């Protein structure tokens, strides 16, 4: 141990640069992994805690399939035997008016005061929410810090409109509550809300706390018997499960990215450690000559790997912790765009995540060093220690790799069954890694063929730099292969994600062009997750119907619905200009279609029957069609107006899409509507505005993947820098010899640049292949397994081209800049080296 310490520290003193490269590579990868894990944990924890806050820590939550419950049910349920407490709640979209316009506000109303008989002053009897709010009165409104700043900003934001009624917020005591998040949200007492706004007196859910004297299951079944199947009761466990299912796809995909980053790091560490191994071959030969056993060399290298892994992991965790702050902000945007409001809590240190990082760092470092330790143990005591890679891989071995790669690719394709991937999230991750490994296993053979093919071409006086570059790549073939593989993997990850996003974006864009070709879109304030009960007033609809400039119009409604324990959406469309809605009893007019994500999630297809529950019982519909709909991955059911009314009651228009005649200017028409209905807080957008908004939401959804793209580019830059530095370290002796013979500095620089460029070009080619394979996997396997969307594959040649060009320029520039210093120093020392 004493000797191992001394040897390792003296090596580190002699080659600090290379040791630093190992530590940096490892810490960067650990940082990536930790950033994603920490951000993932904090964002999802935030999501869960917000959800828990809303539930009031209740035993069960009572809701209806249509998402609306009469408030009077609260009193009824409270008196039910076994229920200790029942509190109503709802969430609506409001509009806050100010001098410069309107802002959308999320309005939460909770039953803040107790409804039961038990001791009000006994904290244990209260739910968390009740404890928190028990000191507040009905004249207090809790607001998010951002909203409070807006109201305090003296821009005149004070009047809140919800469900067609308004109040002046400044007449209340406004207190900040950071749990509400970073957008404009507020919480007020449910009774106050219903008194001021909710004339229909409909709420979203009732939170129930049960008496412990009776089992929850028994209470649940008794309640069901009375209420009927139109209502649902979900427990915290079921909520957690729903939440987990909801976010499952996102979590799994994030871990794919993190795992690939770790894999790249392992290659980087192997790359640098193998060079160290070669440099120390003379030392190993000497040690063996004086009696060191192979086991001693294994232990020495493992000990070094453990030390470097520890240092890299600690640094990586620190860096990852810092990065997590930025990543969690992006991830929260994604969750917000996809699911619900998230409060960005602080990233917190946990011992578990720290130990995880340490174990990962050490494990990866140790695994990377295994082949090097194996070689070291086999060095003979007559080892020449010439500093060159004598263990070249020749053709048969390369062919072996290629065959193995082909086999791995075939196995991966065979295992890429959608059902398997959906049921075993880890399988998707494994397949992504296997595909990467499979493609990269083809690399040694291709590289070898390339070197063989180019060599005869180099034997010409004008091509000496190329000849020497080919020579060096041949002599350090394995390290060259690993370098190309590392760059290809990191760059391939970037291309895979970019291609997947551009394909997706293109599909969404095309879908928007086809389905949203209206000139003007009118709705009331943007509902949060479409839970708004806002309906467009009848006089507006009549006006539009009668307007001579409107050539076509479509009315739409979308409501949340509970199906098989999950939240889905039900949409319906009705023409604006056709005659009145047809007779509801005419069932031949009733039709139903489902979105692709619905079909995937619930394993249905066109021609099959779907049972939906109404207030009058279950209704069976035939699925006429499965449609592409990129609006939500939760799943959407499309009903004709007749079916909609049959299931959920009257069709109340939430939004209208209009086509205007060709002579009418959209902007003028919009102005006219606003002038005619000045008191209505209408949201009116032109066609392009709507399409832009959809793309904006799309970009917000993919914000986290953009962060991962950035990380992959950072990894690429690191590997390239690492490669160039190693190139100069490794060839110091050779460059010194050439310099001594009389080679000019420029010719040596050309030599270095040529080699770096050849490696980079080969890496780019393989990155392209790997990227396309990964993107096809993400689009046609992961997407279909978890989201079910039809995405048309398309390659963004521009982005890929720019990426490759920038990579090559970066490589050439870095090599050129670093060569000056590297080539001029220590020439004499290099010549004396043997």
């Amino acid at each position: 141990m004493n000797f191992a310490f001394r040897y390792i520290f003296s090596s580190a003193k002699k080659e600090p640069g290379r040791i630093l490269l190992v530590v940096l590579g490892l810490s960067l990868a650990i940082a990536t992994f930790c950033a994603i894990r920490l951000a993932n944990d904090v964002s999802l924890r935030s999501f869960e805690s917000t959800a828990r806050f809303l539930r009031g820590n209740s035993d069960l939550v009572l809701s209806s399939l249509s998402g609306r419950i009469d408030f009077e049910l609260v009193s009824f349920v409270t008196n039910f035997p076994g229920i200790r407490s029942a509190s109503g709640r709802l969430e609506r979209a409001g509009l806050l008016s100010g001098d410069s316009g309107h802002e959308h506000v999320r309005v939460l109303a909770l039953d803040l005061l107790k409804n039961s008989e038990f001791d009000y002053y006994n904290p244990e009897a209260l739910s968390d929410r009740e404890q928190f709010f028990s000191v507040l009165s009905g004249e207090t409104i809790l607001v998010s810090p951002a909203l409070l700043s807006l109201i305090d900003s003296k821009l005149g934001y004070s009047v809140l409109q919800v469900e067609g009624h308004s109040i002046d917020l400044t007449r209340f005591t406004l207190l900040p509550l950071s749990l509400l998040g970073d957008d404009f949200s507020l919480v007020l007492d449910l009774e106050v809300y219903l008194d001021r706004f909710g004339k229909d007196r409909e709420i979203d859910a009732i939170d129930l706390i049960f008496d412990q004297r009776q089992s929850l299951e028994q209470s649940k079944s008794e309640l069901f018997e009375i209420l009927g199947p139109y209502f649902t009761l979900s427990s915290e466990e079921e909520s957690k499960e729903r939440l987990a299912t909801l976010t499952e796809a996102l979590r799994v995909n994030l871990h794919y990215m993190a795992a690939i980053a770790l894999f790249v790091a392992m290659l980087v560490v192997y790359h640098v450690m193998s060079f160290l191994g070669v440099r120390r071959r003379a030392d190993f030969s000497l040690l063996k000559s004086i009696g060191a056993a192979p086991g001693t060399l294994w232990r020495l290298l493992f000990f070094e790997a453990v030390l470097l892994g520890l240092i890299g992991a600690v640094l990586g965790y620190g860096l990852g912790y810092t990065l997590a702050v930025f990543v969690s902000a992006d991830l929260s945007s994604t969750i917000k765009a996809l699911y619900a409001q998230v409060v960005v809590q602080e990233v917190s240190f946990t011992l578990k995540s720290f130990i995880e990082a340490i174990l990962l760092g050490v494990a990866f470092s140790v695994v990377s060093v295994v082949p090097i330790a194996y070689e070291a143990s086999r060095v003979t005591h007559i080892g020449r220690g010439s500093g060159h890679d004598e263990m070249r891989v020749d053709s048969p071995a390369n062919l072996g790799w290629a065959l193995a790669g082909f086999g791995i690719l075939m196995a991966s394709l065979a295992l890429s069954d959608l059902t398997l991937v959906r049921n075993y999230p880890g399988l998707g991750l494994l397949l992504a890694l296997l595909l990467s490994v499979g493609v990269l296993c083809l690399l040694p053979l291709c590289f070898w063929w390339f070197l063989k093919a180019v060599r005869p071409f180099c034997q010409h006086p004008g091509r000496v730099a190329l000849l020497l570059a080919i020579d060096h790549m041949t002599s350090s073939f394995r390290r060259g292969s690993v370098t190309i593989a590392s760059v290809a993997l990191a760059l391939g990850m970037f291309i895979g994600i970019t291609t997947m996003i551009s394909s997706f974006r293109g599909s969404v864009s095309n879908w928007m062009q086809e389905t949203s070709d209206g000139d003007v879109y009118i709705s009331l304030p943007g509902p949060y997750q479409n839970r708004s009960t806002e309906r467009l007033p009848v006089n507006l609809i009549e006006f539009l119907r009668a307007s001579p400039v409107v050539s076509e119009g479509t009315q739409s409604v979308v409501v949340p619905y509970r199906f098989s324990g999950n939240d889905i959406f039900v949409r319906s469309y009705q023409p604006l200009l056709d005659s009145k809605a047809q007779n509801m009893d005419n069932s031949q007019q009733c039709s139903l279609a489902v979105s692709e994500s619905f079909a995937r999630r619930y394993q249905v297809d066109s021609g099959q029957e779907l049972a939906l529950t109404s207030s009058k019982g279950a209704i069976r519909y035939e699925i006429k069609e499965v449609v592409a709909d990129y609006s939500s991955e939760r799943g959407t059911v499309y009903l004709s107006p007749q079916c909609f009314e049959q299931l959920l009651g009257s069709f109340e228009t939430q939004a209208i899409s209009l086509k205007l005649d060709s002579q009418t200017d959209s902007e003028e028409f919009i102005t006219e509507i606003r002038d005619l209905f000045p008191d209505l807080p209408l949201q009116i957008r032109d066609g392009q505005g709507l399409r832009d908004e959809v793309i904006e939401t799309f970009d917000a959804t993919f914000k986290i993947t953009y962060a991962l793209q950035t990380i992959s580019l950072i990894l690429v830059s690191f590997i390239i820098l690492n490669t160039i530095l190693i190139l100069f370290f490794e060839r110091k002796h050779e460059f010194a010899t050439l310099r001594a013979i009389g080679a000019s500095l420029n010719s040596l620089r050309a030599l270095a640049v040529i080699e770096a460029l050849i490696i980079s070009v080969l890496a780019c080619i393989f990155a392209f292949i790997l990227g396309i394979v990964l993107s096809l996997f993400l689009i046609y396997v992961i997407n279909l397994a978890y989201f079910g969307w039809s995405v048309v594959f398309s390659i963004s040649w521009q982005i890929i081209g720019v990426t490759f060009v920038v990579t090559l320029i970066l490589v050439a520039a870095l090599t050129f800049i670093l060569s000056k210093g590297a080539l001029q120093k220590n020439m004499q020392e290099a010549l004396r080296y043997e």
Partner: protein
Amino acid sequence: MDSEPYIEVKQLSKSFKVGATTQLVLDTLDLKVDRGEFVGIVGKSGSGKSTLLNIIAGLELADGGEVRVAGKLISTLSSEQSAAFRLKNIGITFQFFHLLPNLSLLENILVPGYLIGASRTELLKRAHDLARWVEIEQLLHKLPSQVSGGELQRAAVARSLVNNPALLLADEPTGNLDSESGEHVMQLFSDSQSRFNTTILMVTHDLELCSRANRTVVLSKDRT
């Protein structure tokens, strides 16, 4: 021989920093070597033999004094200029051969010719001629790892002469060879001197090898 010395060293000084101390290796050294002369330089370890050779080759800069080779003041040349001068006028052999490991012996011999941009046909002919002369023609396709030390050094000698340099610098050329191989290499030097009128400066710690030289210069830590 020409009247002007081919190599002229005047008041050459060179020192190295070793930790906190400065070691004076060459102290106001003077040396003249005529065109076509074979000079052996001997001395103990640390006497500055290799340093002297490196300064003459333009691989190192002196602290003081001047060095002229073929009338050119080497000490004032930039690194690029000295590399170009070296390529055209000086051939070097080393104790450890310093052949490029994955080029064949033929390709190693050709490298200086490639660098200078010579015609491939002429270059090949010259390389083969040299290979024949140094008796490694049958081994030209082999890699350095596949031949013996003596064969390597002969290949290195051939490489050093491919551009027809006027000056050949040899740093311990037989240091890593057995006596028979060493003798063979020394014979090559003598032949080179007689056939090509090459000026040869050879550094060695073996006084016996200097018997082939026209002159022997002894460097010591005190004075030359």
